[in-house]
């Protein structure tokens, strides 16, 4: 049968069991003591930005920044496989990659000139 896919299935099951198991275990055995810091939004360790009372609106700046992040994030994702196979791909791929980066750079120039990076 589709032999090559069996390990994948196995891996999938394992992942599910691990996720469910760890959440379940912590629910059962973990201590439950809450304080203010624990209930706050998690922002990679920095102090959470102040929000309007009632949990209100998120400033549009967050949205812009998030979009920019995604664009450059995607760019870097494409760079990884290129870097791995660089030896095989040769000069042609290098030119292609430079063109790709330049294209994204145009977007950066646009954002910069039109004030997308000014926080104020």
């Amino acid at each position, binding site marked *: 049968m589709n032999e*090559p896919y069996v390990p994948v299935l196995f891996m999938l099951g394992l992942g599910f069991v691990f996720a469910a198991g760890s959440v379940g275990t912590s629910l059962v055995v973990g201590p439950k003591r809450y304080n203010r810091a624990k209930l706050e939004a998690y922002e990679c360790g920095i102090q959470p930005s102040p929000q309007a009372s009632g949990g209100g609106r998120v400033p549009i700046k967050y949205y812009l920044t998030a979009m920019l992040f995604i664009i450059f994030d995607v760019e870097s994702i494409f760079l990884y496989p290129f870097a791995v*196979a660089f030896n*095989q791909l040769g000069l*042609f791929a290098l030119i292609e990659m430079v063109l790709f980066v330049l294209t994204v750079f*145009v977007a950066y*120039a*646009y954002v910069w000139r*039109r*004030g997308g990076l000014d926080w104020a």
Partner: protein
Amino acid sequence: MTSVAPQGLPAVFQQSTIDYLAILPLLIVFGVAIVGVLVEAFVPRDRRHMVQAGLAVVGLLAAFVAVIVAAKHQGLTMGITDGASDRRLFALAIDGPALFMQGTILLLGVLGVLTMAERLGGVGPDAFTPSGASTPGSPFETNASRAGALTSEVFPLTMFAIFGMILFPTTNDLIGMFVALEVLSLPLYILSGLARRRRLLSQEASLKYFLLGAFSSAFFLFGSALLYGYSGSFVLGDISKAISTGPIEMNGLLVPGAFLVFVGLLFKVAAVPFHAWTPDVYQGAPTPVTGFMAACTKAAAFGAILRLAYVGLDTGRWEWTNALVVIALLTMVVGSVLSVTQTDMKRLLAYSSIAHAGFVLVGVLAFDSKGVGAVLFYVATYGFAIIAAFAIISLVRQNGGEATHLSQWAGLGKRYPLVAGAFAFLMLAFAGIPATSGFMAKFAVFSAAVGTGGATGTVLVVVGVLCSAITVFVYARVIVLMYFGDPPGDTGDAANAVEVVVPSVTTTFSIAIGTVITLALGVVPSALLDLADRASQFVR
């Protein structure tokens, strides 16, 4: 356990062969769009509008010349021939239908850009808003403009959309098709939301278009996945081969896969039941954008539908033809019947465009090169007429805003005979009256369908003729209204009167060209018909 890699990938890296002259039109349009973004970033504010509009028009014309060059370089490109399995894995197919659609879209794009560039004496394009929260002509708007919020971004956005559109009919695999679909859609979502007047309607249209477009993209992707599961490849030629030789036990995936992929494309041409967005979006979007969308999106999507139906899924035709026949019938009937009761000019044309999509589908279902030629001819003629029609709608104003309600058009023929005459002529073209391009186009698709479509084709054509008879009533009503109706609220209140504003030379040009071409293709259509006929062969 040696390899889990998909069958498509060869073991050793093999460089793609790319015929740069064949893809020159694509490169030019994309390049101009990128330059447009840079212009937006670096060119001083007061010169941007002129630079952008000029750049776009010049770029489109250059790309059109490149299409003529590319016609000598037809064939598959951007990919490899896998020597081991003798498979041709190419991303793009530069062939007759693709080049014809590219040429059509580029010329229509020129007209579309020219109507978008209409300023009516203001600083920026009149139809678009520089700031979403201000009312037209208010101090807030002036402040926003002064602060740097300009609307010349519409030009690069349009160029990106056109890039997606001319890529769409050339894509030879499902992934490329999906990328093209998104590239053409995303700028259109934004453009739909930029109307300067009736902001809420516009934003609503934009959001609806986006949500439903994403929904249909999901269908397309799901269908692609199923087809990949069936055939093990995204390349259309491979899928076609897999259907004719392929595994019987996987047949369960073929039908839903094929149909779902079609759904994604039929959404773009506004076929029933995937049409619900059309009236709202056509009405809400800025009128020049509506015209551009109606003409170019339809052409691009029909190009892709043709390629899918004739190259990718041709061998499995008996599996999905019935579904498409039902959709074509529904589209013609619903589009024409609902257009009868419309009271808003833009909605009326939206329903009319739905009906027209049905007529074109009849040509698609002819399944021979004559049908392909007829479809190519139809979308070209329809495109020129609809762009001019929407350009005229954008000129009929009351109190500065567009007067799109039918009652506001009453008696227009008496005060503005030239504009009303042109519009009436375009209406006749939509109705398919002889001596207009619409007649020749309808005749071409219908005779193709009757000639080769067998009994099904005949049924489609009979329904098609009945439906065009219904729509004749709709268009005749508009003409009657313009010529025989009394102007609304004829109180002599000059400030409140419905008027036709005098456009600049750009809009005048695109209206004139659209109308003249509509007439010319009705009287001497042979040249274009012949071209469409010669361009009707796909490469595989």
